[in-house]
């Protein structure tokens, strides 16, 4: 056997072992999802059978209707989409806006803000949530979405940092050239630099989506009326009260997981690019 075939065989063995390993891991990654779907389809009381059943007919799709109507999930989904939708538009724009300022200009203020951003990336931010709560209480804005959404309109340190890295890597010549052509900086930002940062924007959108879609703390603190609950606390409270209807809880969990998975399927191509271009920082 010559050296070349030997190497080929070695390579093949390596690839096979890797694939088997990844397949085993994949099963572990997928099983909880499959289990959730399977047990969301069993009849009333059947989730308490032993041994556990996996995708045994008949399927009770009505559990999804029960979750939507009895558990009010139709309302919570609408609320979650409103919150997440606004956050996903505001956050990328606000963070990119600030990041553009940090990347294209150089003066004392820019240097100070950059320093603060870098410091806040490393130092854990501490503190109580009560000062913000009291501030919103004094403004009479409790039990509205404003306390939850307002921060998204002003930019978040981590995303500002991510966008700044991206803008820094783009040439400054575009800015100078567009300026000479008489464009104003806001126009330059919106029409030239923002479209070039698409991949990083996708990372910010996906991050914001999963942050707001999953947000439990915000509504827990600020929202008191049931009609304004989002999915996270809707499911949290249902989990405490509906222990006897496990199949409905599973259907609710599937309802809550589905949009994250769908949006990731759409954005994942950009997402991988974006992580690479941002120098891969968690």
């Amino acid at each position, binding site marked *: 056997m010559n050296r070349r075939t030997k190497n080929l065989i070695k390579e093949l063995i390596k690839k096979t072992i890797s694939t088997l390993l990844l397949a085993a891991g*994949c099963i572990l990654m997928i099983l909880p999802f499959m289990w959730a779907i399977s047990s969301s389809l069993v009849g009333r009381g059947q989730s308490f059978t032993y041994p556990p059943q996996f995708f045994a007919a008949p399927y009770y799709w009505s559990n999804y209707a029960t979750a939507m109507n009895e558990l009010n999930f139709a309302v919570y989904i609408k609320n979650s989409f409103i919150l997440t939708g606004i956050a996903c538009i505001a956050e990328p724009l606000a963070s990119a806006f600030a990041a553009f300022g940090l990347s294209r200009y150089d003066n004392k203020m820019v240097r100070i803000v950059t320093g603060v951003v870098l410091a806040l990336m490393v130092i854990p931010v501490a503190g109580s*949530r009560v000062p913000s709560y009291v501030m919103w209480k004094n403004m009479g804005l409790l039990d509205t979405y404003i306390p939850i959404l307002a921060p998204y309109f002003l930019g978040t340190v981590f995303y500002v940092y991510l966008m700044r890295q991206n803008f820094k890597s783009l040439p400054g010549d575009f800015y100078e050239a567009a300026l000479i052509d008489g464009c104003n900086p806001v126009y330059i930002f919106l029409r030239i630099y923002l479209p070039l940062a698409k991949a990083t924007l996708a990372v910010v959108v996906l991050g914001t989506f999963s942050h707001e879609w999953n947000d439990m703390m915000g509504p827990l603190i600020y929202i008191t009326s049931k009609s304004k609950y989002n999915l996270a606390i809707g*499911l949290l409270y249902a989990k405490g009260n509906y222990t006897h209807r496990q199949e409905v809880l599973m259907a609710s969990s599937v309802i809550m997981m589905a949009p994250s998975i769908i949006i990731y399927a759409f954005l994942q191509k950009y997402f991988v690019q974006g992580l690479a271009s941002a120098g891969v920082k968690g």
Partner: protein
Amino acid sequence: MSKKHARWSWLFLTPFIIGMLVFTFYPMIFSVYYAFCDYNIFNPPKWVGLANFARLLPDPATWKAYRNSFAFALTYIPVQIFLAMIFASALNQKLKTIGFWRVIYYLPSLTPWVAVCTVFTVLYNPAYGPINYFLSFFGLRSEFIDSTNWFVVVTSLSAISIWKGVGSQTIYMLAAMQNISSDVLEAADIDGAGPIAKFFKIKMPLLTPMIFLLLLLSIKGAVGVFDSFYTMLGGGTGVNENLTVPGVLQYEYEFVFRKVGLGAAMSWLTFAIVGIITIIQTKSEEKWVHYE
């Protein structure tokens, strides 16, 4: 560059600066003040000096919370980084299916905590859950989160965090591995290094910067853990004193028991502990982290 246009920087930065002042620094400064006050939100804060700290420090609940979060961090972080390295090595074999695996492994990271916890409550059910059913073939069983042993409960929660987080860490680790130049590995081949020697003597040292970064981020996350403990063990009501973590305890002090001073004091205690760990980590960086 663009010196005369520097005034435009004000336009771009003002919203962000306002945001940082209002949502980061203002709460931070007031938290310092509240930590020294008796305050229940409805009446004005009353200065009590170090009384809050004097109450927190000897309280066993405080130390149980920190014990739990340390046990959580120490079981979840090393296992997760270890698994991420194995999966990343497997992904790094120039497989054609890499895109598919990357999508699958990343999925759990995106799914909401509360939904994940609802599903795992069923998976972990001691009486009729599928995990115990599977274990029964080997003559094993566990009570998982219903156990009376706090360590079993905490590690059950670590396992969920590992499941949820290992995919994203694998992707970061893979990026670091792809940055290792093939020259170095070929040179080692010529010198006759075996695969094990290559892994420990060459790949590992070159991966240490990424491991360091992941450690730094994971510790921050592990000490601040809230969602999984609150959903799994509280379910909208309080968490048992034996099983609480600092994040949950702080939330309960602030918004359930209305003892804001204790909550604020707790947040600074956590800040101090995380700060000390971060300093130790950064100091130890030059000892084991290898930069090219």
